């Protein structure tokens, strides 16, 4: 990941700010400039929309052989999460033993370290998910 791209995506990465189509009301995350359903009608009508951070695990997988940048962090759980607003996100599940993760588990977003450019580079923060309190 480059610093410039990370910087541009900070609102989405830290605060789950996506876009809501002003025509049909559909919420998009990551943010989109045009609603694929409403096309040209949605131009200029896509508004910032902050997700609640709450969602449900739809599917998950345990990563035991991670990509090089996540070496030393395995095993960890990556999940497909259906957010309460209807969109889908992929994120890591933290603060939860692997046996505890299940389909249908309620989760909430939190801010964690995602990765870093080695010992000298930038540190990238972003959303991960943990078991919701309720």
């Amino acid at each position: 990941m480059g610093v410039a791209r990370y910087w541009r995506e900070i609102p989405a990465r830290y605060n789950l700010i996506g876009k809501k189509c002003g025509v049909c009301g559909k919420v998009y995350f990551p943010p989109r400039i045009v609603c694929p359903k409403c096309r040209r009608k949605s131009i200029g009508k896509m508004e910032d929309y902050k997700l609640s951070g709450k969602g449900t695990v739809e599917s998950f997988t345990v990563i035991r052989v991670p990509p090089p940048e996540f070496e030393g962090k395995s095993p960890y759980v990556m999940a497909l999460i259906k957010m309460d607003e209807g969109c889908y996100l992929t994120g890591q599940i933290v603060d939860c033993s692997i046996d505890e993760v299940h389909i249908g588990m309620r989760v909430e977003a939190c801010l964690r370290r995602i990765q870093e450019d080695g010992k000298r580079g930038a540190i990238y923060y972003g959303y991960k998910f943990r078991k919701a309190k309720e």
Partner: protein
Amino acid sequence: MAAIVGYGAYVPRYRIKVEEIARIWGKQAASISSGLYVFEKSVPGIDEDTATISVEAARRAVKHAKINPKEIGAIYVGSESHPYAVKPTATIVAEAIEATPELTAADYEFACKAGTAGMQNCIALVKSNMIKYGMAIGADVAQAAPGDALEYTAAAGGAAFIIGKEGIAEINDTISFTTDTPDFWRREGEPYPGHGERFTGEPAYFKHVMNAAKMLMEKLGTKPSDYDYAVFHQPNGKFPMRVAKKLGFEKKQIEDGLLCPIIGNTYSGSSMLGLAAVLDVAKAGSRIIVVSYGSGAGSDAFDITVTDKIEEYERQGIRKMLENKEYVDYATYMKLRREFE
């Protein structure tokens, strides 16, 4: 006037028992635990640092205070474990609570009292009408060399306080006591701190905490029995108990704010987490004295009176949060602390 408008606390859920650390080094766990009056300490997750802990505490403070984060005019993060040597933690927090861009922000460093130094600055900015709200955070993921005496206590956690004109607790006054005392330090680029062994007690912690507490009480004409609660910095469980006794406070005044025995020393988070735990249980009219301590060395003392507003404030329940924990063994602890990387 200046007051606490809201507070938020966060302690990572992992714990390691003193017993487990003592097992590795062949020490007597029982004598270490009773000597320090610490039984277990918090450990940050592998992807947690001072920035993520600060964000957790800050988000909770904003949520419970029910304020618009855009009205926060200053954010100060006090820590001795900022993730970057150069690049402020405070900007990460400001972005994560959506307080940007109209605010001032900076990181502070003064061993374990950098957070309360930030509180004093927020009080000054609020009183001088420069800002509406200020946020002061004390947070750390404390480092200790494997095998060092500090390993039994160096913990992780933090607390955030929002300061404004009116709120759940009025800050009646604050004073500081500061000298050049080399009791504990960490050199640039060094991963672990060094310390003056026995030098950390009398001429350092006790001298500064006691002088700050006495100066504050003298200035306000108060005595220990005027306070419902007292919070002293907690490098271990013993020091705050001993300093309370020396100053003439009773055990029941310090119990609610004493978290070190079950979470360890959260450094910049320590006295602020203690104050947060007290605000969780305090009633309207409760009077609180808080004295932080930072090696190097200095103490900030605060005299606080809880207001009627506490009754409708939704409190966080820090002790309940601390019950959600998972114990790790020493090898896992080393992995979470990223000692193998």
